[in-house]
């Protein structure tokens, strides 16, 4: 058993030396994410509020190309009812076609449609945003070093530039952005959305809601993963204990310690 302990030590050592924590020195803002930890899961109301922030604020520039409207009613997500999701989908004009005459046409969205993109293509997005492409948000949380904490901080990190820093037109100062210069204007301001459940729409609250929504968008099966993980590990531990005693029993026939 002493040797097993050593295995774990070596293992921990390797984990500590993984390069991932190296790059950033800025301390991110922290908050109590509901999805962290062994039993972490999403708060439905928070995901629904987050979707509201996304669709009313972010979606005017940021696409979410891997999500469909049907995802909004799926288990583990915001869990809108299917009828609600249908209404949400129908509120978007989707280009479809070509029809029998070879013409493209628009129709109300269906559950199977992907989220409507704000721009036709990357070039159009760049042209409308001073040359910067607003990244697709489907996996954004997983695509940034600091993850949820980083983007949460970024949304609240807008400040007046310090003395001596001059900014070009359309460039803003953000203390969490790499290089501190960002081409996105502060997207959130007090009361920019009106929550129907009466939650106060402070910048901090909206940031937290929308980041939770983005986390779900990046990891739609996070809840299922955590639940299955707990069962799998408990099962493995029980089996390990049983096998340990079987091993002891079998090895008791030889005068060697295992």
């Amino acid at each position, binding site marked *: 058993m002493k040797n097993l302990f050593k295995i774990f030590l070596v293992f921990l050592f390797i984990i500590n030396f993984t390069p991932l924590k190296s790059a950033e020195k800025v301390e991110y803002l922290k908050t109590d994410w509901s999805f962290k930890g062994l039993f972490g899961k999403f708060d439905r109301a928070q995901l629904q509020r987050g979707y509201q922030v996304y669709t009313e604020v972010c979606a005017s520039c940021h696409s979410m190309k*891997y999500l469909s409207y049907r995802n909004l009613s799926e288990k583990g997500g915001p869990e809108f009812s299917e009828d609600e999701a249908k209404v949400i989908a129908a509120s978007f004009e989707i280009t479809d076609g070509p029809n029998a005459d070879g013409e493209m046409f628009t129709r109300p969205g269906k559950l199977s449609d992907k989220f409507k993109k704000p721009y036709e293509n990357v070039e159009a997005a760049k042209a409308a945003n001073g040359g910067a492409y607003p990244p697709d948000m489907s996996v954004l949380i997983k695509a940034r070093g600091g993850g949820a904490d980083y983007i949460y901080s970024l949304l609240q990190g807008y400040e007046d530039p310090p003395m001596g820093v001059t900014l070009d037109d359309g460039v803003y100062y953000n203390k969490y952005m790499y290089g501190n210069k960002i081409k996105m204007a502060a997207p959130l301001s007090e009361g920019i959305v009106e929550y129907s459940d009466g939650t106060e729409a402070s910048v901090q609250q909206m940031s937290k809601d929308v980041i939770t929504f983005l986390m779900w968008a990046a990891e739609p099966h996070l809840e299922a993963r955590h639940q299955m993980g707990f069962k799998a590990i408990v099962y493995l531990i029980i089996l390990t204990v049983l096998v340990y005693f079987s091993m002891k029993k079998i090895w008791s026939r030889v005068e060697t310690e295992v």
Partner: protein
Amino acid sequence: MSDHDYTPKSKVGKWFNDRLPLLSLANHLTDYPTPKNLNYWWTFGGILTFCLITQIVTGLTLAMHYIAHADMAFDSVEHIMRDVNYGWLIRYIHANGASMFFLAVYIHIFRSLFYGSYKAPREIIWIIGIIIYLLMMAAAFMGYVLPWGQMSFWGATVITNLFSAIPLVGEGIVTWLWGGYSVDNPTLTRFFTLHYLIPFLILGLVVLHIWALHVPGNNNPVGIDIKKPSKDTVPFHPYIVIKDGFALLMFMIVFAFFVFYTPNILGHADNYIEADPLVTPAHIVPEWYLLPFYAILRSVPDKLLGVVAMLSAILILAALPWLDTSKIRSAVFRPLYKQFYWILVADVLILGYMGAMPAEGLYLLIARVATAYYFLHFLVILPVLGFKEKTLPVPLSITEPVLGGSSNMAAARNKESLKN
């Protein structure tokens, strides 16, 4: 193999076995006499077999849904993560499985280094192992390219560009590898093909690795030759099977923790950004298991020599049975070697850390010293140590240190010393 005389009891069994001795093989595998003092460091062979099978099975499933095309690879991976039933589970097992595989193989290799398992008569086992390790690195590297994220693309660019260091033909080789003038769709499709092929090559080599092992039998922590079968051995089944099984379960708990709770911690965030040939990431870093070699590559100022140093760092291991001149296998009886062994372990960990840091200033200096020491260990320290080191007395059998020398053993020892 000691069991040619095995005959199946049933008539049908005998008929079959005379034509294809599968039953003899099964009998050999269950009865295989194994030293009874093997510690838990010896369980990683079984764990590695598990890792290989896991990678093959999950990989086959992923290949049914993955699309090897530069425009669709990233999308198809997201399709697996979102819409394929338990696709997220299969992909996370496969991605973390690669890291677990390397974790296990490094423990397996360093166990060999500590107990001198590479020495005569086990050189062939060792060399096959090194080939397997090289193929693993190739497979892992190409697998990391398949999701076609930013690190995939730029990692592939950096690594394939290493071949351009070869004088005269280098540039031509790189173009040939890429199938074009940059890393692009032809590169992706051939990497996918090779990534699919290599695990089966590894599987074949694993069979040879085990076959070669079963000729002399296992080394053991005492590092002495033992009589087989004898009081020093136990049959593989059930003794070693259950012990390997127990260790495997412990390993699976760690594995499961990564898969279910921190599935992305061993990967790089940039790989969730779709590959873009026009945007270079700030730091291009390989996966953690390649970092020590990456550090060696970067610590040499010349590109060609850097590549040579990196390759030598791996290939030098194949010459280890002849570089280590000591007659004693186990570090338990080699007080000096034991210390140098742990320094080497620290050296490799330091190299790994430096591989993750930017190659500048103090980091670069430390990486250079560590690289020099790495080669010093194998080329100078090991050969000299074999002649200079005063080793501790080695017991004659595994049971002796436990039971104390009987009169028989004392006699045997006298005979041994007369011979010398």
